[in-house]
């Protein structure tokens, strides 16, 4: 184990410079967080009407990224898609980093972070947040254990221990469960029309299976660019197919929601969409962002559906970036905010993250990428050594 960890401590200047940058961003986030601890959440853009914002949005988005590891693990272990053998480990380590970010985003959102353990000390099975904690911590453990052991056996050129396989099988439905539970967190709340729909969980899964693998493709391209390990064109193309289908389903699901709202004209359902895309009662802060989402989604779909652009690496990278950013906007901010608009009294009060709030979020992302970099560094070095 230590000899594997060692690999994270040797690297090129570029590797160290990248880690330093991440550490600086983490430090900036930490300073802002200390400020938030002192002043309270008043330094954020949150209000009594929009009481969840960027933090919980990013949490939601990242649970999706974490869950999407299943899109590599499932084809590889259940359908024996050999190409994914080379990158399964990257999917699992991406999940680890994503879950850590999820936990951190919950932590920075708490008004009383020192009491976080109350969730464990007073377990409340009627709360979806309790189940989210169970699901996420279990998933983190599964991916750490599986990923680490698979990599270690790869280094020693032996098959993974027999007990790893059942864990892999458990991790597949577990991945689905973490995002379903996260969706239920929203979908079970009365009078939040934008969330209160059975398709929320389905939408979450679709957007997760598009955004996660899209990020994984981008990461694999970076790995190939900066190291001697090649994840393989076959694996990337297979992932691209998954992203394409998932993105189509994701956009379709949003379309289903739009139809139900706009055709029925039931005010509660129409208002949130109106707020997001047109502005409501003169409030339209998210409108430009939401149209950016639409534009990016269209670009992504065009590039993905066209076989030539999907096969070309530059265009595929562009498509993946578009998928990732569009879903980041819609799920990482729009979804959460729109649920709170209009408020319980039919009024609109808007939300926009403040600078410290954004820096804290960036800090959490930096910690995630720090973990991701270290894990990927270890994995890549091992793979370089065994000469794949």
């Amino acid at each position, binding site marked *: 184990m230590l000899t594997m960890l060692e690999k994270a401590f040797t690297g090129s200047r570029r590797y160290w410079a990248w880690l330093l940058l991440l550490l600086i961003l983490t430090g900036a986030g930490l300073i802002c967080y200390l400020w938030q601890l002192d*002043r*309270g*959440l*008043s330094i954020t853009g*949150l*209000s*009594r*009407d929009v*009481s*969840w914002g960027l933090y919980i949005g990013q949490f939601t988005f990242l649970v999706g990224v974490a869950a999407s590891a299943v899109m590599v693990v499932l084809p590889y272990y259940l359908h024996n898609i050999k190409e994914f053998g080379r990158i399964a480990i990257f999917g699992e380590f991406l999940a680890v980093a994503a879950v850590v970010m999820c936990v951190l985003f*919950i932590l920075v*959102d*708490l*008004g*009383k*972070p020192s*009491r*976080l353990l*109350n*969730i464990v*000390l*007073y377990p*409340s099975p*009627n*709360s*979806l*947040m*309790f189940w989210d*904690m169970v699901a996420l911590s279990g998933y983190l453990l599964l991916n750490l254990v599986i990923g680490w052991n698979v990599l270690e056996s790869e280094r020693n050129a032996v098959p993974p221990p027999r007990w790893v396989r059942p864990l892999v099988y458990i991790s597949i439905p577990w991945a689905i469960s973490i995002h379903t539970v996260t969706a239920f*967190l929203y979908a*079970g*709340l*009365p*009078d*939040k029309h934008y969330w209160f729909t059975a398709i929320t969980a389905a939408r979450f899964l679709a957007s997760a299976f598009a955004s996660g693998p899209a990020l994984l493709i981008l990461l694999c391209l970076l790995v190939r660019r900066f190291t001697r390990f090649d994840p393989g064109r076959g694996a990337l193309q297979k992932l691209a197919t998954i992203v394409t289908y998932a993105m189509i389903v994701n956009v379709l699901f949003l379309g289903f929601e739009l139809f139900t709202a706009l055709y029925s004209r039931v*005010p*509660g359902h129409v208002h949130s969409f109106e707020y997001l895309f047109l502005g409501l009662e003169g409030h339209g802060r998210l409108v430009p962002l939401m149209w950016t989402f639409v534009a990016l989604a269209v670009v992504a779909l065009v590039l993905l559906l066209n076989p030539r652009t999907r096969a070309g690496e530059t265009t595929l990278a562009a498509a993946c970036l578009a998928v990732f950013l569009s879903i980041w906007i819609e799920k990482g901010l729009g979804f959460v905010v729109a*649920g*709170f608009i*209009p*408020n*319980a*009294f*039919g*009024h609109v*009060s808007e939300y926009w993250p403040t600078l410290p709030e954004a820096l804290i979020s960036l800090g959490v992302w930096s910690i995630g990428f720090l973990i991701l970099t270290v894990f990927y560094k270890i994995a890549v070095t091992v793979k370089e050594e065994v000469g794949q």
Partner: protein
Amino acid sequence: MKMNRRDFLRTAGVWVLGVGLLPLTDVLAQGARPQVLPGREALSAARWAMVFDSRRCREGCQDCILACHRVHNVPDIGDVEEEVKWIWTTSYEGAFPGRQHDYIDGLRSKPFVVLCNHCANPSCVRVCPTRATFKRSDGIVMMDYHRCIGCRYCMAACPYGARSFNFRDPRPYLDEVNPDYPTREKGVVEKCNFCAERLAAGIPPACVEACRDGALAFGDIEDPGSEVRKLLNSGHVLRRKPELGTGPQVYYIV
């Protein structure tokens, strides 16, 4: 002492079992605990409820709000976004969104007092991950500020916007402090408690006591002889968003 693997596992097992049984000792020891009793004068009910009579409420009057906020050390933050409030007034449309039409001229200017509905089936209690908010057997939905982690899930779950979050330390925003009641602190959610602390001492809620026009009534809704029960038959009675199944226990006579 040298310990082999088997001994170690055995000892560890007993130890883990012992820790697992620890809560039991609390239960067993309870017999020896000193007794606790309800207050001598305490008011009790099968289900507390409030009736607001819009026919009697005077426009512009703030008596109930001021009384409540003074008694409970509710701060005046001065910023609408971070406002903390337990009871306040809104318009008919605000209290009953979707139930208005364009021609309700008579009702439009009337104030409607809103507060926590102390629901029979509270969604805030359902979602709380620490049971910091819970329902008592007399129907009061309480907050345990010692336990709240400030996740604000209850705020998202409350369809009445009745919950406030302490975005900042509330102390500097209190003009005068009632020494008989605590304040809250930065980072917890708060709301109306139907004056549980006053009921325990045998006095009615502060808002009800403060209202000089008899627009607020409070009592046991399950007692057929109670004032609130009689009031329910004296006019057209609404509840806020009853279609959500939360079972709100604040009734409005329109």
